[in-house]
């Protein structure tokens, strides 16, 4: 791999770092921490309510996820994120290994038609953890261009490299997580200063690729009698999205029940654990993909707005941290994380209320699932790291100058 390295990013050696311990190292970004804490507690309350009536889910596992997440968060927070800056190649290798690991013979586990899980003591989804490394990989890749990427060949190379994690995850296959990777990459491309013309061309090609997938699938269908590229449930989800009332498939049922749950919550909701749609099993996958419906049903529009408000605050403060960052790499990390959250929030809440097609993307800080909980804590740690190592970065800027 040949990636141009930028000399504007220079890492202080260990001696220098120890000598110049960041000023804010022992402090925390108060508003950010406050919002994150509230969000975590709020999410846990909703998750507890969603799992309370379902013996298939153990709320303790979510708490274990939080505990592990706290450890990871502290690690990332105290770790100087700049160590990752020049690890682009290593990050890419880690990504590929992580995402492909469920294909390994002994630890790989197949569930629900996808090779997405590995079993190491407990069952985890490496594709979720890879979101952290995808963020770091994408940010480090773009950071090399110092905020201006207007060379076509370089741009093509960057896009090609950014597609690697997506292609890897599609071997499982896990389209939902793959879309998250793509969105992270897209945000990093935009925020990393790629030329708008290229961005629009890429978008056009992306649309063409989607059309091509459907077209090729039709050809395959007419020759072999079955769709190969897109699975039937994926087609159903799209059909349900396009005509929610006409469809009676399982996916149509899911969407209808999700909307009933949200709508019946009304302004103030039915009260925690009192949601009939979720507790009596009408709502499928209530604690995981459709956890927002539980919240909306039990806490109503007010509760839903509280969550949206918390997300707005989290995103706003994170973007503030990104803007305040002296370092392009740090800024891109924060933007990538914000992009990931934005996409997951849009897709998850959107699919619950019929704005988006159904995909299995969890809701940050709320959905049941310890892997993603740990990932979110890592993200919080990374943002904190960018914030806390901010002052020390002035050097880079001056170095560049």
């Amino acid at each position, binding site marked *: 791999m*040949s990636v*141009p*390295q*930028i000399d504007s990013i*220079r890492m*202080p050696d260990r*001696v*220098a770092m120890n000598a110049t311990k960041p000023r804010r190292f022992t402090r925390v970004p108060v508003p950010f921490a406050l*919002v994150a804490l*509230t969000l975590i507690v*709020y999410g846990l309350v909703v998750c507890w309510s969603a799992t309370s009536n379902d013996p298939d889910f153990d709320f303790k596992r979510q708490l274990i996820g939080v505990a592990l997440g706290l450890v990871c968060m502290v690690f990332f927070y105290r770790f100087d994120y700049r160590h990752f800056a*020049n*690890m682009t190649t290593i990050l890419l290798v880690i990504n590929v290994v992580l995402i492909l690991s469920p294909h390994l013979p002994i630890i790989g586990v197949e569930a629900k038609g996808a090779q997405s899980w590995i079993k190491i003591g407990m069952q985890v989804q490496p594709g979720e953890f890879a979101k952290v490394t995808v963020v770091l990989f994408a940010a480090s890749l773009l950071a090399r261009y*110092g*905020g201006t990427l207007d060379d076509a060949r370089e741009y093509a190379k960057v896009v090609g490299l950014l597609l690697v994690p997506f292609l890897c995850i599609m071997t499982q296959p896990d389209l939902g997580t793959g879309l998250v990777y793509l969105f992270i990459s897209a*945000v990093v491309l*935009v925020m990393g*200063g790629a030329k708008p013309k290229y961005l629009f061309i890429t978008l056009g090609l992306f649309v063409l690729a989607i059309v091509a997938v459907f077209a090729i699938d039709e050809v395959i269908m007419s020759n072999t009698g079955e769709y190969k590229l897109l699975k039937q449930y994926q087609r159903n989800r799209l059909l349900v999205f396009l005509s929610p009332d006409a469809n009676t498939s399982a996916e149509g049922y899911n969407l209808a*029940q999700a909307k009933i749950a*949200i*709508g*019946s*919550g009304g*302004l103030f*909701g039915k009260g*925690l654990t009192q949601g009939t*749609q979720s507790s*009596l*099993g*009408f709502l499928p996958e209530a604690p995981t993909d459709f956890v927002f419906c539980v919240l*909306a049903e039990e*806490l109503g529009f007010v*509760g839903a707005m*509280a969550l*949206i*408000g*918390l*997300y*707005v*605050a989290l995103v*706003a403060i994170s973007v*503030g941290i*990104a*803007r*305040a960052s*002296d*370092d392009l790499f740090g800024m891109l990390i924060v*933007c990538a994380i914000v992009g990931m959250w*934005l996409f997951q*929030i849009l897709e998850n*809440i*959107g699919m619950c*209320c019929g*704005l988006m097609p159904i995909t299995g993307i969890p809701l940050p800080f709320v959905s049941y699932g310890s892997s993603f909980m740990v990932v979110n804590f890592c993200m919080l740690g990374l943002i904190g790291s960018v914030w806390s190592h901010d*002052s020390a970065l*002035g*050097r880079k*800027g001056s*170095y560049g*100058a």
Partner: protein
Amino acid sequence: MFEAIVTGLIAAVAVVIIVAVGIALWNNRRTPKAGQVKAVKQLDTVGVGTSPFERHSAALSNKSGEVHVTHSGHGSVRKPADSLRSRFVALGVLAGAIFGSLTVKLYSLQVLSASDYASDAEDNLYSNVRTPAPRGYICDSQGVPIVKNRTSQTVLADPDVVDDRDVMRRLSVVLGIPASIVRQRIQDSSAGAQSKRVVASDVRLRDVAFIAEHADAFPGVSVESRAVRDYPYGALAAHLLGYTGLPSKEQLDVEVEGREILSTDYVGKSGVESTYDNLLAGDHGHRRVTVDVLGNVLDVVSETQPVKGSDVYLTVDSRVQYVADKTLAELIAPEGVLGEGTGVGGAVFVMDVTDGSVIALSSYPTFEPEQFTGSIPTDVWNLYTDELAHAPLNNRVINGLFAAASTYKSFTSIAALDYGFADFESEWNCKGYWDGFKTGSVQRCWDHSGHGKLDLHEGIVNSCDVVFYEIAKAFFDHGPDGTGEVSATAIQDVLAKYRLDQTTGIDLAGESRGRIPTPEWKADHWRDYPAEAVWRGGDYTNMIIGQGDVLVTPIEIAVAYGAIATGRIMKPHLLKEVRNAAGDVVVTYEPEVVAEPDVNPDYLSFVRSALRGVITDNASTAKNFEKYGLEAAGKSGTAEHVDKGDDAWFVAYAPYNDPKYVVSVVIEQGGGGSAIAGPIAAKVLGAAMDVYTEKSEVSPRRLAGYSGKAVEYKTQSAERTD
């Protein structure tokens, strides 16, 4: 309480957001200052170490060497974000659009359409369960219930239990049924592919309790307490009562005012159960319950009790019915095996000639309605559909079509008198054979030795065929092929007055109508064989003695003889009255005169006296009827068949001078009318008169249905002994 906690929680969230955003804004405001401070501080920490990354990146950068830091000239306070300001704006717009659209959508769902979705959620949550209503009883004219209800503990299994060997083995052990039978019953999809399968009915309560207590060990198995039909007298009156079963698709689709049929309900399939199904069926109870997604009932919100159906009281007297059923069974299948007795089937019908009330309606071979509740067991079905079983489900009284034989002579003699081809003094000479048409093919009287000289009265009493052949010849000679004075359907017109080609209108489904052959019918029937389609003299002689193409049902003959006895054709009916669940009479049947045949009263009384002579002037018949103290009038008949035994007929009414009851008896392939059917007619008529005069000592007991066992029937006699 709960609301307060939620409100507090949300308020806390709101406060946190406000504080956080406030602090964030405050920090932003101070950022420029901080940046300056940083810029100053940064200066003294400049220095690039020799980190491991350094060499690597330097090497690469040397290689490509074309990447430049664009903002290097802009002073130390410049942040990377500053040159990408527009992109931050884009990110902000994106975030704003996402949160904005989600908020709008949620507002429309949760505030604007909340009530719609709330009612959808209630539809999910609440479910209306219909509880089955018991059917009404069916009672005889004395109020004795002959069809009741009882509860039956029924063990049901989902169809897929058949895949679970363990569950089937447990069921087999608990219920004491061989595992292979359990499997067979679960595989039986006759009640519908998706329906639960009945593994066992009438299960002991302790076994039911065991299954209920160990529900985990019996997934897919459920126990229901069902109200099923109970028949205290077994097969008594099986054909007229009919049986119940799960509704057919057509029955489910039919919409009847005030009636709701569920696929789990029992509905009448035949007989009175079917005719008065809407009266017998009760009103479902309604139960509003909360359910989870699997349909498990969590809580009962409200409940209305089911209302039992109305009780139907029949005109039938169970004592007479019992005598009729029992007598037929003992004659035809004395040991329960068809083919070992006399005849292969039989019908007895008793009617009150004054108002058309049906006193007894019996058909053999019979069945036990209880066996047919739910679904018909395969083994019984196989036996009953065998040719040797002679169709036990057929109600021979209303749909058994037989040649009327000499019972026709009462009506054809009225035709003879009517058209003047015979009068009270006419005389004929019977030599035992007859060849009036000079065709060379001699027709014989049943008495081959000949009756000698007789008038019409003696002709009827002795059932002399030659007398009627002569009358037929007279009709033929004056008909279209002769002088043309009378129409080709002169005899048929008189027969039609007695509605021998019409259904009687009894309140039972599936009634057949008899056939009076006419030239027109024959032409149509043989339209493909023009040579056979010609109406000949032989058709006259056959028809006048009720042979050939003549067909009647036992009920038609009985109703027509009732009309000879009284002058009125009554509509036979089974319904006496209907009482609702509270015991009040809500419907009472009003007798209905169908027609009063326009016949000269003198001819009528002539025929009556001849019919009286049939009873009194034949020694053995007279003895049969005297045995029961009956002053009866009647007529025998023996329907000849070329390829099988003769059908024995006897129709009679009593008392002769003040008719009350008419009885018709047919024994299919039974032999001679007087010898075989006569005694039965006498016995049943006697039983009816005993009931009428309140001297009856019969107490009905449980009757077994026909077992389905049969051997080939050896025809006893092909000789007529009218």
